């Protein structure tokens, strides 16, 4: 599904070049559940962003489902991104001005899905996550765990093939964290490919494969 080859990513700081990613090559098959680990500043999040097409590498090649995405035009790339990839963040990044329902609905709006269809899709997912009763609340009226649940629901609403999660449990207590990780496992069993960045050994165990990063290189 994902094939990264010799990916480099750097910033120019004055005359020096600071490397974030150094020569990363990585293959991910459909249905895998991968945990990326590593200390702060090792490039985990950047790698996730590169995979998620939010950031472009300076060097290297990247094919996503057989397509060389780096060569694609912005529009096509955003099309792939819209239909195949869902994002989950540590800080949830829900839109404060929108209700739970509207937050989940937003990606569908950007995919130009009809209103009636949107309604049933959102209703299904609210049902599945058992948050129907919270649909009219605003994010700041929810607990952290609930917010992350909404964040995941929002990522799932477009039926993505790939979910990218950047420390999804980082802001949660351990009970909430376990719940979220169980949810991920469930999704993975349904066939969704998941790549998560995490600090926690315990959470990393949920994955089928662990990738260790250090100073921008894959070390294990």
């Amino acid at each position, binding site marked *: 599904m994902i094939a990264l080859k010799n990916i480099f990513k750097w910033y120019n700081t004055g005359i020096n070049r600071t490397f974030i990613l150094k020569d990363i090559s990585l293959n991910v098959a459909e249905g895998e559940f991968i945990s990326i680990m590593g200390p702060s500043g090792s490039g985990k999040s950047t790698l996730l962003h590169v995979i998620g097409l939010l950031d472009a590498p300076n060097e290297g090649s990247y094919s996503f489902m057989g397509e060389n995405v780096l060569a694609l035009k912005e529009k096509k790339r955003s099309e792939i991104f819209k239909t195949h990839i869902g994002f989950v963040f540590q800080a949830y990044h829900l839109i404060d001005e929108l209700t739970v329902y509207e937050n989940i609905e937003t*990606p569908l709006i950007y995919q130009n899905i009809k209103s009636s269809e949107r309604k049933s899709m959102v209703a299904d997912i609210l049902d599945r996550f058992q948050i129907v009763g919270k649909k009219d609340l605003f994010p700041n009226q929810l607990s952290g765990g609930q917010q992350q649940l909404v964040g995941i629901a929002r990522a799932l609403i477009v039926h993505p093939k790939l979910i990218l999660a950047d420390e999804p449990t980082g802001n949660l207590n351990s009970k909430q964290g376990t719940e979220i990780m169980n949810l991920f496992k469930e999704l993975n069993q349904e066939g969704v490919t998941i790549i998560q960045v995490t600090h926690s050994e315990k959470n990393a165990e949920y994955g089928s494969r662990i990738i260790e990063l250090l100073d921008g290189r894959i070390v294990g």
Partner: protein
Amino acid sequence: MWRNYFKTSFRNLLKNKLYTGINIFGLAIGLSACLLIGLYIRHEMSYDTFNSNADRIVRLTMEYRQAGTVNTTATTGTKAGPQLTRTFPAIESYVRTFIKSNVVKNGDKMFDEPHILYADSLFFKIFTFPFIAGNTATALDAPDKMVITKSMAEKYFPEVKTMGYATALDKTLTCNDKDYKISGICNDVPDNSQIKFDFATAFSNLGNHAKGETWWTANWITYLLLHQEKDIPRLQSDITHYMNSTDVKADAGLTGNDYLNFHLEPLKKVHLYSNLPGFEPNGSIKIIYLFSIIAFLILLIASANYTNLSTAQSSERSAEIGMRKVLGASKRQVFIQFMTEAFLMGFLAAFLAIALSIFFIPLFNQITGIAFKSTIVLQPYPLLSLLGITLLISFLAGLYPSLILSGTQVMGILKKGFTFTGGKNWLRKSLIVVQFCISVFLIIYTLIILQQMNYMKSKNLGYDQSHLVVLPIGGKMMDQFKSLETAFGAVPGVESITASYDTPEFVEWGDGISAQDDKGTHDVSVNAMPVDLNFINTLGMHLVAGRDFQETDFAKQDTSNDGANYHNTYMINETLAKKLGWSAQEAIGKKIDKGVTGEVVGVVKDFNYSSLHDPIGPMVLFLQRELSRNFILRIQGNDIKGTVSRLEETWKQRVTDRPFNYHFLDDSYNKLYLSEDRSATLFSIAAVLAIILACLGLFGLSAFSTLQRTKEIGVRRVLGATMGNIVFLISKNFLQLVIVSIMIAIPLAWLAGRNWIQDYSYRIEINWLTFLLAGIAALIITFITVSFQAIRAAFSNPVKSLRSE
């Protein structure tokens, strides 16, 4: 999708109340100012256009040279209209007009009516004043006919309201003791007509001096109706040629280099482009341009606030935008969302602007002197203009923030504490500088105008204006002139009384004199003033030499023997004495000839007898009480009301054919500057609005900048910064910008102000203190605005701001 945009926009507006409030309120003020100024400009531009013949009507103005001086007036003699119409086939017809006040009576209803029009019979064929009863073709074809307006019909014949206006036809009204038959009732004259009348009657009713035809005695305003508009330039050169022909010059009694010529002013250009006032003071195209610029500047300030606040707020919105992009929003979709917000804001402001405009229409009417109805705002034209401006402003003000916000890279935005830097700050700074430049410029300009106005109103005019009461007189009163004067003079509270033709604040009587001495004959164009005894004393003027008129001077006015031995006595002003080459002392006893020869008995210290636009010219006072149109009374200052009511009592006992009417001389003096006063008021308001709007923007910006720096302020406080340090930290950048603005505004305002006072013969010196004052005021206002936020931040507990995150 639109629903989602609107919902988000609405909630965002609600969330940031300060920011939304500043934007909507500021834009609404800007739009409202624009709307009102637009109405005013449209009114001025529409002058006389309601006449269906407007394109073919011209006003005839006169230019002549006599005794070496060239004069121009909007008035002509009685001959110009008929003679030119007879001579040139391009002219279809003419009408000579005059408006004066007279007493109108119907039974016990008696009023002094200021707008009685005297016009030739074709008036209602040339101009378009639709009749609701009567026939326009025959309405003025006999001297005993009179046309009145709808409201006059209601005033003198109240029954027309129920029985119909036609019932007033053929009824009788008495004007100046002559009976008239109502021959037509026309709609009230629109505000944008240069001819404003309530009554209209035949030109011949003006009496002997309106009968017959003469090139001179130019008192009448003549309009010509041409067959075709395009004939105007050709006809103009034909008339000039004709007026220069030997026959016509001889007919007009012109010799040597003297000449008489007429100019054609297209009717629609008279109000804004002519420098010759006719029935009313003209507007000015310059003022129209100035106000258009002001409206534009105020809108610019308000829109700049929007742009600035939106970009400043971008950091607050970055997470949302980033997330939307992650969720699949395209650049276009984010752009549209922010534009939606701008348009929503614009329309809310527009609605508020309509409400504000309706609320301020009465005040606006008071300032402009135009009687707009509140509902005028709701008519299609203003509404459509407002819609257009709102769309444009929303688009322009929203464009930059929308482009910036939608065009940013997702990754950049998702990182914490992201702010836009570089180019955008430069734009924000420029907009602030532009805003304050405009504000400071308007403040200085307004201060200069106000200083000049104040100077004019308080200048020593050469006489004492205060506590002078003017009683207009005429008709049968003249028969008992002396006894009336004595009676009014004896009313308790009256210190002294005199009478005159013009009142001294505005002398219109033009004349010419010749004087002989050992250097030869001098011909001088002068202003002249027939006065009664006691004039110098009552008005508090000063004699440089000689004496005031006295009772014995009347003895010289010997009317026996057909006036062969008739002489007059004269007082002249210093300027005339100088012009004749005499010192004040030398002038006493000299003979001058003003149609009648007479001796100069006094030289009066120069006094201003016209607006301060004009320098003091040569002036002759002569004793001729029967020409008086006004009593002028100096009364004591301690019981003005009582004295006026006693005067009214005396009037009612002795005068039956005229209602009691009075005004104070200083009021009519101030009226000379009515249009300047209006402009000055509008400028003051514009300046205040500009500074308020600019400060609103700064207030919002400083709030954001303080918010962004909350943590920094916390750290600095912990490190021992004083409140002063913090306030200085926040204010510094803004104050720098305002100082730059002041530097730019001062020279511009100096140039503009100098240009404005150039129009006055008597003017202030522009004082550098004005600039200093305006600059310091702007700085203080800025400082207060900005430091309000800073002080709040400095007061907050630093531990609090540092704990979060």
